């Protein structure tokens, strides 16, 4: 996928002025936060579960080679095939080859962020294979030819009007005068259209919420059941998964599932949780004849052993973005690549380079809300700060900012100079602003005064006044 992350600032400004987007964001956000809060409050051991989840993932990542190996062996023992793919290119090639090997013309798809990372739909199309998204959110954005704006709710940025408009425009085979104003009628219409596509597909591609080393299974959770039809009806099932999705045992997977749905949608459990282990066996009533796993690295192993290793614990629940005031203000597209919100601000620079994605870890107030809701206790603000350190070391931060910071640090290290400068500064501003108490504009402060007045200081610095009063014996 191409990135517009370097233009984050402009993207954000555009997003803030987009009334439709703002309406959609406001509607979607509140619901997610309330539902999570309720689900967490109803489970007294939630905090303990977070610790457990964190420990499971830390252990797995510390022994990643072992668990991946075990996983792959167990997949093959069950008759599946694992494709080790170091780069996105390797993965795309593998997917297209599998599709070609069975002469696939259409491919149904469950929701997969790895699919987005690979830009797999464009690649399939280029190879003459038609991809059909079966998750409702993914389906609508495929109709609209745009990327998802959220990792679990791809159409987070859309309003019902947008759905109606897209359906009327694209479903030309249906009566133009039909009534489409309710959520249910929209879902029914999408289901009708998709049903025939499910039956016609030669290959089904899904993501994986987890891979279980012990059993060689892949796990998906959905609320629509589309994933099950995608992976059981066609002849071939391809699982797209990145390497950090592996967990040691079935029990570990269940622990993480308890955290996942509550953190994501506030459900105790998602409507459908499906474990797939290998292709169809002789006595099975359904299932694919071939089962492939695309195991993607794409930069993840290079995070191991760095200050970003903990990011590999992420289970893609989206709690961080659902609770992020910056995400809530600008939406997911502004971030400019696959992963938005706080988790994207840490992960994107790792995967596409901090030179391109440098804005993302900077566009945070470090309010800490994301870390406080993350089921895996990932210290997201700390890692954003590490990106800022890397940028600073590599002189990627803007030179005006570096200069200003340098001047400030020079003063902060020299109390006498600091005292002098603050006295003059506070005195001048205090004198100039003493009547009105604030400024509507100030030289060099446009960033502040564009939308805010600048309160005037009292006039004398604290330390100067303290010294004066102390001399007079008044404090």
């Amino acid at each position, binding site marked *: 996928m191409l990135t517009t992350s370097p233009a984050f600032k402009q993207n954000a400004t555009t997003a803030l002025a987009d009334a439709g987007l703002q309406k959609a964001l406001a509607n979607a956000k509140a619901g997610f936060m309330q539902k999570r809060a309720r689900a967490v409050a109803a489970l007294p051991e939630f905090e303990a579960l977070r610790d457990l989840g964190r420990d499971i993932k830390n252990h797995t990542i510390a022994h990643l080679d072992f668990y991946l190996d075990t996983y792959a062996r167990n997949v093959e023992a069950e008759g599946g095939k694992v494709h080790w793919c170091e780069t996105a290119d390797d993965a795309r090639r593998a997917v297209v080859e599998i599709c070609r090997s069975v002469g696939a013309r259409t491919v149904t798809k469950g929701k997969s962020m790895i699919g987005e990372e690979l830009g797999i739909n464009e690649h399939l199309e280029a190879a003459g294979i038609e991809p059909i998204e079966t998750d409702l959110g993914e389906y609508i954005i495929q109709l609209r030819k745009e990327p998802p704006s959220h990792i679990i709710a791809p159409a987070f940025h859309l309003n019902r009007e947008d759905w109606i408009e897209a359906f009327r425009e694209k479903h030309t085979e249906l009566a133009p005068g039909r009534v489409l104003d309710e959520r249910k009628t929209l879902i029914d219409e999408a289901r009708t259209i998709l049903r025939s596509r499910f039956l016609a597909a030669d290959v089904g591609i899904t993501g994986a919420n987890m891979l279980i080393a012990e059993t060689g299974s892949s796990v998906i959770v959905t609320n629509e059941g589309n994933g099950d039809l995608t992976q059981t009806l066609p002849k071939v099932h391809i699982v797209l998964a990145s390497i950090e999705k592996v967990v040691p045992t079935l029990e570990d997977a269940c622990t993480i599932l308890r955290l996942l749905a509550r953190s994501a949608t506030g459900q105790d459990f998602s409507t459908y949780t499906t474990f797939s282990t290998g292709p169809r066996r002789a006595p099975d009533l359904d299932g694919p004849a071939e089962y492939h796993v695309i195991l993607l690295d794409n930069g993840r192993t290079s995070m191991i052993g760095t200050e970003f290793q903990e990011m590999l614990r992420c289970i893609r629940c989206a709690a961080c973005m659902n609770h992020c005031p910056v995400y809530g203000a600008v939406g997911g597209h502004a971030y400019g690549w696959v992963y938005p919100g706080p988790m994207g601000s840490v992960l994107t620079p790792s995967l596409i380079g901090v030179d391109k994605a440098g804005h993302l870890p900077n566009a945070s107030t470090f309010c800490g809300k994301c870390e406080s809701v993350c089921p895996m206790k990932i210290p997201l603000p700390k890692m954003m700060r590490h990106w800022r350190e890397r940028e600073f070391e590599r002189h990627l931060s803007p030179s005006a900012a570096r200069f200003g910071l340098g001047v400030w640090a020079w003063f902060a290290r020299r109390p006498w100079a600091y005292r002098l400068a603050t006295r003059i500064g506070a005195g001048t501003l205090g004198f100039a602003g003493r009547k009105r108490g604030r400024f509507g504009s100030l030289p060099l402060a446009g960033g502040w*005064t564009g939308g805010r007045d600048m309160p005037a200081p009292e006039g004398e610095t604290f330390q100067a006044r303290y010294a004066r009063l102390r001399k007079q014996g008044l404090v």
Partner: protein
Amino acid sequence: MRHTPPRVALFATCLVDLYRPTVGFAAIKLLKEAGCTVVVPEGQTCCGQPAYNSGDKADAQDIARSVIALLEPYDYVVVPSGSCGGMIREQYAALFAADPEWKLRAERLGARTFELVSFLVDVMGMTGVEARYEGMATYHDSCSGLRELGIKGQPRALLATVAGLTLAEMEDAEVCCGFGGTFCVKYPDISVRMVSDKVERIRATGADTLLAGDLGCLLNMAGRLQRLGHTVRVRHVAEVLAGMTDAVPPIGEGQARQGGAR
């Protein structure tokens, strides 16, 4: 059992030093009322957060070293800000992860460093104040204080004992106001949007006064309230708790509104 009063170093923070000295004096008054001996160590500047949060680790470490050396001799360090208090308490040690000697010194100082209001309540056991303030106030929970230091009940407990004051909780009191240090000038559009949301929440309470424990957030919220022409009075919580609201007009208000120069 403590027989001698604790010697407390007040670290005023650069924003209080430059913008709002009254907060420093309010802190001194409250600490004395709580039974502390207060010292304002000479030569204090800033805790180093601007450098730290901009990725300039070397400068942040330099500044941290001088702050540690300056404040080490005291029983406690008290800071009238959750974010600067959190910087010294939680982040200094992280800055010296690779330097065992300074890490130890940072940890020892961090363990004795507190934000003002939580220090008064949690350490000194203060349960009430002798102050009067006429008005209905709403309290914004600044992020670092809330999530890094667990400050939530302490200011409310003390405010409940201020005569004449009623407290009206705003919705989303725990949501960031959009200040974020350099964030507010680096991403002004997003920041202004966040503070505008905050202003709506404040206004919805009908409160005539906005209080918080961090000057950065207060300047941000006052600036937006006033740009939009709202007359909510904005003050640092310490000013109200110390009964020092007559000493200075609300943040961003001129002397004109308070009825002449003092």
